[in-house]
């Protein structure tokens, strides 16, 4: 199962969990999977154009914007990281 790392600002939606797991095989499917278990998380990550501008999603070390975007394939051994684009106040 792929590990999904959750940043601090989203942990109120994951009961404080900093890591979740998913068996889905693309980033898009993983986000749908997270949404089913933790409602509200999808709207924090995506807008009608795709990944919100101030959110970065990495598969391993690579930003999905430079891969296949939300259709990027995720292997069970991969780590997916949701990283805020800015550092906060």
């Amino acid at each position, binding site marked *: 199962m792929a590990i999904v*790392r*959750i*940043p*601090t*600002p*989203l942990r*109120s939606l994951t009961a404080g969990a*900093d890591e979740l797991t998913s068996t889905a095989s693309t980033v898009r499917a993983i986000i749908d999977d997270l949404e089913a278990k933790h409602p509200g998380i999808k709207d*924090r990550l995506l807008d009608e154009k795709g990944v*919100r*501008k*101030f*959110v*970065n999603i990495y598969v391993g070390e690579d930003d999905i914007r430079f891969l296949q975007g939300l259709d990027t394939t995720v292997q069970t051994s991969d780590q997916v*990281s949701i*990283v*805020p*684009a*800015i*550092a*906060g*106040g």
Partner: protein
Amino acid sequence: MGFLLPSLVETIGHTPLLKLPRFGRATPSIALYAKLEFLNPGGSVKDRAVRQILLDSLSDGLLQPGQTLIDSTSGNTGIAYAMLGAYFGIPVQMVMPSNVSKFRRKIIRSYGTEIIDSDPMEGSDGAIHLVRRLIEAHPDTYFYPDQYSNPSNPKAHYFGTGQEILDVLGDRITHFIAGVGTSGTMMGTARRLKEARPSIQCVAVEPDEALHGLEGLKHMPSSLVPSIHDSSRLDRTFRVSTEQGWDTAERICREEGLLVGHSSGANFFAALQIAEELERTGTSGCIVAIACDRGERYFE
């Protein structure tokens, strides 16, 4: 007319207020002003707090020779510490999340400051926790001014920003608007303005969500609340989305020729909403909002 200043320290503050007639054209009864904090030498409002923190720490003997100054920052405070550390000859280390932009890191390192990375997943609160761990491990090495709890931070704005606004606008100002991160700008300025006239409305701007793109601003309900933050000094908290802040920054740039950063955009979004509220009720007003820094600081 040119003028002579004795030191870099003297170049901080005394920023102008600029009227924004085109941006505020839909609310002709309301005067909208930007306080141009990006004209400080380090490029942001944070120069004021850091100058006061260093001057007070040096005069009170809190910062000892041989100590390294350490603090956490998401960027602008780090630039101010780096600049003034270089000026005063104080070694500086800044702890910042590793997702702070390369451009900012380059600016900070240019002054000779060392950067220590904290976990980007933990944001600015993670940087605070890492500083605290480093201090515990090496208590004699470091001087930790802690911008989030240092009274010199709001003091800079009490004597500086607040007084400067009163000097220019006097009794005319009705509203003051600033985004809150440490909340130093709002706390110090609000205290000074309300001493002069308690009816001046002080409006804090915060992001509307915990995960946001308004760098420098804190979503207080999900953050470590700075000890200098006193919500009883606020008349209102205005929540702005990332998109509203970004779009307004772009609009200010195109309509007024001011390339400001996203947190300034958030402040001016709030200013415009409040101006429209006043206009609808037939009330006149004079609104001052902080233009915190320049937009090119956010270019990738």
